[in-house]
């Protein structure tokens, strides 16, 4: 029925390998930035101070309810149009990035909202009892956070963190919309250059599956290394 020609995949292996590297690079950097922002947002949302809670909540609700692709377009197309008209050049140069950079910013901002919710659930699950127990043995607030609440929180959110990391990795595919040569871009290029549609998409689909599975496996291994549970 079909002439399958898997050699095509080998012929384009550089493009594919490059695509994997870019996808993983975007995943790692965005996840790191998103986690820091998310953690800050989570503490803001649970601070009990409305001047922190309200903006943090508004940010999370806004970002979680609009498409990632729209954020990408805003940052990649919209921002330069505005920046070079209204900002001093040095500032415009500082905030405008190439495709990959823009995607990393968009992913970080978008996933910060999701990660905020993950960490918030963790913070709430730790609850007062550990806090009180920590204080009762004479720890300072910082000490309580460092030795007690933060470790317990991270342990309890690890599974959600895994799922979020996998989602983020899959969403790097959207970077192809702004011509970042990641995996999906590679698949599309191979399939339109060579018409080897099957080979291109099945290979790339399989690579995504394997990497998503690997991310899960690594995180679960990490979970197992922590012998205690909450």
């Amino acid at each position: 029925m079909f002439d399958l020609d898997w050699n095509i995949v080998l012929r384009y292996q550089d493009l594919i390998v490059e695509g994997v590297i870019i996808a993983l690079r975007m995943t790692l950097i965005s996840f790191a930035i998103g986690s820091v922002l998310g953690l800050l947002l989570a503490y803001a949302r649970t601070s009990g101070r409305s001047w922190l809670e309200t903006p943090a909540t508004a940010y999370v609700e806004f970002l979680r309810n609009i498409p990632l692709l729209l954020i990408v377009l805003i940052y990649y197309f919209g921002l330069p149009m505005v920046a070079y008209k209204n900002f001093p050049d040095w500032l415009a140069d500082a905030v405008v990035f190439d495709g990959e950079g823009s995607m990393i910013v968009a992913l970080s901002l978008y996933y910060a909202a999701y990660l905020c919710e993950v960490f918030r659930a963790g913070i709430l699950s730790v609850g007062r009892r550990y806090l009180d127990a920590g204080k009762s043995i004479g720890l300072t607030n910082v000490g309580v956070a460092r030795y007690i609440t933060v470790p317990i929180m991270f342990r309890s959110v690890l599974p959600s963190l895994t799922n979020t990391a996998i989602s983020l990795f899959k969403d790097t595919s959207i970077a192809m919309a702004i011509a970042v040569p990641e995996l999906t871009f590679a698949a599309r290029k191979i399939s339109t250059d060579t018409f080897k549609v099957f080979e291109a998409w099945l290979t790339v689909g399989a690579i995504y599956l394997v990497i998503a599975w690997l991310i899960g496996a690594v995180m679960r291994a990490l979970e197992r290394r922590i012998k205690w549970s909450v």
Partner: protein
Amino acid sequence: MEKTLSAIAQNLDLMLGGLGVTLVLSVLIIFFGTIIGFLGGMGLTSGPRWLKALLRVYVDIVRGTPLLVLMFLLFYLMPEFGVDITGFQTVVVALSLFAGAHISEIVRGALTGIPKGQADAAKALGLTYWPMMREIMIPQAMPAVVPPWTNTAIEMVKGTSLAFLLSVSDLLFETQNVVERTGIALPFYFTAALIYLAVNLLLSRFGHWLEQRNRYAA
């Protein structure tokens, strides 16, 4: 400022047309995804072994693959099988399958959480499978299904924006056209963002309403 406002006024109907497409896509996807998801979830919990295995493969593959890849896969592959498929149809099928996989897992989890004695009691009364599902199991699964179902529905509304990449004239596609034509970016982008936000907040409200309706004294 005035120029911007009049540009928005002039192009708003285009964007609303796009919104229409986005809404139709969303409704179709959530509808089909929910049907697939409930059937899939039941199959995963009480189907024969071969069906369980088949559904497990479907659910795991679809959940491990980016939505965009799924979409392009269908779009480029279908013609190879001699099936002409439009961009619109591709989006509906791909996202329905995606939503279906997620909702299958949600329903499976909720059904698994129901105490085993409930099925025993229903069977002991003489109920067959489908009435038992309809009257006993699904109603008890609903409180656990509705919140994650609502999240999935919102993800799907956002996911319809990928239609843009197949040149389906949805809200995002129309917005990008207007931006490129007028050279005005942020006001249009943020208008689009607010429209998506409004739709999804309405969907959340609907989810809350469903939650209330499906609550029983506990």
